[in-house]
């Protein structure tokens, strides 16, 4: 998203650039409806490779929107994710901004 778009006053400024990327946005949407989601569940919903999902989730974690929980070791190991309070707020705001854009058309 360009700076011009962000400041155009047309509603784009309310869109969060971190979660506007389609894969991250869908991941946030899944997480918004769950207390906790496993890596495998997200991977199947997004239909992407392990490495791609890891990259997307790292970006969300770095932004403070997602908390990661790892349990077990070896073959039994599992990774799960949950939205942080900041992540939930950001997702709601982003969704509302998208709806507002639709309303303005």
């Amino acid at each position, binding site marked *: 998203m360009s700076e011009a778009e962000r400041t155009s006053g047309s509603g784009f400024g309310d869109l969060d650039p971190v979660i506007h990327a389609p894969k991250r946005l869908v991941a946030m949407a899944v997480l918004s*409806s769950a207390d906790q989601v496993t890596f*495998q569940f997200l991977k199947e919903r997004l239909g992407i490779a392990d490495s791609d999902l890891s990259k997307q989730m790292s970006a969300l974690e770095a932004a403070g929107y997602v908390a990661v929980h790892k349990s077990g070791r070896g073959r039994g190991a599992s990774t799960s994710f949950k939205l942080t309070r900041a992540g939930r707020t950001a997702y709601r705001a982003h969704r509302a901004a*998208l709806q507002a854009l639709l309303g303005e058309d």
Partner: protein
Amino acid sequence: MESDDVRARLHDLERAEAAPYVDQRPSPRWFAPAFGLWFGVMAAVQDLHWSDEIDSTWRALVTVAIVIPMAALVGAYSAWHQRYHGALPRLVGPKPPEIRRVYRLYFLAFVVVAAALVGLALLVPWWVTGAVTAVVAWGFLAAYERIYERAAAAVRERLA
């Protein structure tokens, strides 16, 4: 951003938000009987605890010896559920209207059935309470899962 793009993006979001509720694997066959057995044992223990059929010390010991492992089973169940289904849907917050209706029905039916079982427990021996609760809980969950799956299918179809 074109309005069609926004509309498509919001539709994707709605589908993704519904996923934890409607993209669940079916429960294994043992789940409903195990659910019934757990509730049956707990109901029997509770009824026994309040009865005077055995000495109070024994009642306390039996209660503790059974309730602690049964509580531990709840923890094991939570861990299994997370691993098996992959997502723990939120009980609070927005959810597909079809699923919200099923949740409401579940909680209402649960209260009615639980009240009926408590009433029964006042009239019959503890082992009858346990047996009836086990069968009722088994049937209750089996019926709930069928109703839930129908609602989930309706959501999947609506959002397809």
